């Protein structure tokens, strides 16, 4: 049982980092970014080359990955989403654009980085025994780093000027505009942060799970499950949803055969959404 709880905790924290970027972009722009998983994969590959192939220190590779993915996010927002959101008021336009971007990114990643799974040397080696459960040092490191990043993100959103502007934008775009918030600029910053978070989760998790070009869609699906559970566009909801999914997976895989676990997760999700479509922490009015 100890092992199951530890597995759930680590899984939940990893998932939280993945879900945060997705929920941030949704909150700011109302865009369901289907390319989120592909941004995660891109982050993993950038770190693979910087840390695994070129041998840069891991922290430096992490920073460089965040900057690279932020730049990719800026390009996506400025070149694609800004224009489509300006000229089309239909929600499906941005959804189709996001789906197209996901395919474009996935194909580009396959062409540039190849079809093989890639892994990097572990940042930390060894296995700890915690309350009778095995915790590899690499996973403990990723857990701690993810926790720090999640905490840093919450503090940034809560106590900094750009963070407050982003929250204002997420809560009421019109009011934020009237209060003098540069909406275009902060939408771009939000997209950059969301993309950087996806890249950072890929960069951290490539050290324990490796990465391959086809991983994007399954990651996006899990991220969507998390934010649907917690409430799309709500930061605390994304974290909550991530831990729910992490623990359900950990307990499910341990106590019932694997194929039933995800079947139950999807049935549970359908039932849950039919009762509370806005998620645990979301508001019914959006």
């Amino acid at each position, binding site marked *: 049982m100890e*092992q*199951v709880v530890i*597995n*759930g905790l*680590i*899984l939940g924290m*990893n998932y939280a980092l993945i879900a945060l970027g997705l929920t941030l972009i949704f909150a700011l722009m109302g865009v369901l970014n289907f390319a989120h998983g592909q941004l995660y994969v891109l982050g993993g590959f950038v770190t693979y080359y910087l840390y*695994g192939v070129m041998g840069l220190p891991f922290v430096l590779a992490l920073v460089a990955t965040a900057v690279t993915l932020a730049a990719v996010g800026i390009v996506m927002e400025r070149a694609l989403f800004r224009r489509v959101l300006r000229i089309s008021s239909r929600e499906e336009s941005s959804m189709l654009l996001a789906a197209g971007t996901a395919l474009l990114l*996935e*194909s580009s990643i*396959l062409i540039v980085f*190849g*079809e*093989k*799974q*890639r*892994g*990097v*040397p*572990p940042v930390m080696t060894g*296995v700890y025994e915690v309350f009778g459960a*095995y915790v*590899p040092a690499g*996973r403990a490191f990723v857990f701690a780093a993810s926790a720090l990043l999640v905490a840093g993100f919450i503090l940034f959103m809560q106590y900094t000027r750009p963070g407050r502007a982003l929250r204002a934008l997420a809560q009421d775009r019109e009011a934020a505009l009237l209060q003098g918030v540069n909406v275009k600029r902060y939408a771009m910053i939000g997209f950059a942060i969301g993309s950087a978070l996806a890249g950072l989760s890929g960069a951290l*998790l490539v050290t324990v*799970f*490796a990465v*391959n*070009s*086809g*991983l994007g*869609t*399954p*990651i996006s*699906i*899990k991220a969507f499950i998390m934010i649907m559970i917690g409430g799309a566009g709500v930061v605390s909801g994304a974290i909550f949803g991530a831990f729910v999914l992490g623990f359900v*997976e*950990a307990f*499910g*895989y*341990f*106590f019932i*055969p*694997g*194929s039933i676990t*995800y079947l139950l997760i999807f049935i549970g999700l359908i039932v849950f959404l039919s009762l509370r479509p806005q998620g645990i922490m979301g508001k019914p009015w959006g």
Partner: protein
Amino acid sequence: MTTLRRLARAAALGVSAAILVLGLAGGAAEAQQKTLKIGVLGVMSGPAASWGLVNRYCAEAAAQMINEQGGWKIGGEKYKIEIIAIDDRNDPKVSVAGAERLVYQEGVKYIIGPNVDTTAAAIVPVIEKAGAINIPYAFSKRLYSPPRSNSILGMIASYQAGPVIYKYLMENKGVKSVSFIARNASDPLNQRDEGVDAAKRLGLKILSSEDTYEPGTTDFFPVMSRVVRQNPDLIVLSGVAPSDAPLLIRAARELGYQGLLSTETAQDAKILSEVAGDLANGFISVGGASTPAIRSKTMEAFVDRYVKVAGEWNDEAGTKVYALEMILNTLKDAGPKALEDVAEFKKAIPAFQMRNPFLKEEKTLKYVGSAYFGQPRQIGVPMVVNVFKDGDFETLFVGSVEG
């Protein structure tokens, strides 16, 4: 001046005429060389992209080498080999559309692929109706057994390798109990069921076989915790993809598992080394059929070319190199009629044999599989069983489907 102009004009006309004549002659020479189109149909994007891309890179590398030698001779005429590759995205609908394009639009009669049971089964009607032959990497016996006769298995199936590996481990490592884990998809689940049957027949105690994981899983700790808790002598990773194997191995070892791990599918040493490192030492898998220990010079030349085409070597290519080789050599035996009529190709199959060009030792290469399918519908690639050690595969033993 006028004379000079005339001379210049005459010279220009002469040069133009020479260029025209040379061009026509060159064109005629090119037109004389016929082209033999070979299709490659398989998954080349998404999580299983490596399976189909290896087929494509193998065919392209081999075709380049043949074309540089002037082409492939069939019935006294040399053919330039053209590879037409289509990504089926592991989707049966796309696979059918791809097969239709190959056979009807491109006029292809010989196709390498697809990679899994679902896509391979989906294109059977297309292949049969169009009178084509394909070499899938799917294990379903129905594809290769009568009344089917147009598909030829391109590798060793799990139900052929599994019993051989289990028996070896029982006799040499004292294995008595086994647990199975598989991806929740039709091919790996079939392979698990066949592995369980084979293990039961050999008298192994099955501790668990119901554990599965979803495609796209990255964290295998939760599912492996349950398997490791059984503490079997052997954990079989049924039908495991090269991307999942190192993560499963790593999770098992980090959870304190000390027993043996094996699979009946081909793996990649570099991926194992990068992702699992020393934790993968002792992992047993069916190898690409040409490990360094058994390679001929022809195989080494192919490896060099493959690296140029694909960027780096993939052990799986050691098995998949056989498909084009067998198609072309059988066509050579069957004669030019087989280029349009696959019945001629099928007639040549039972008697076909050649020296295996990829092995250092002198071995015969032929079509096998009669014991499994009731007819020879499998390429007789060597069954190489490898063990991973310190970043590379070592050959444990080499067997064959025919025992």
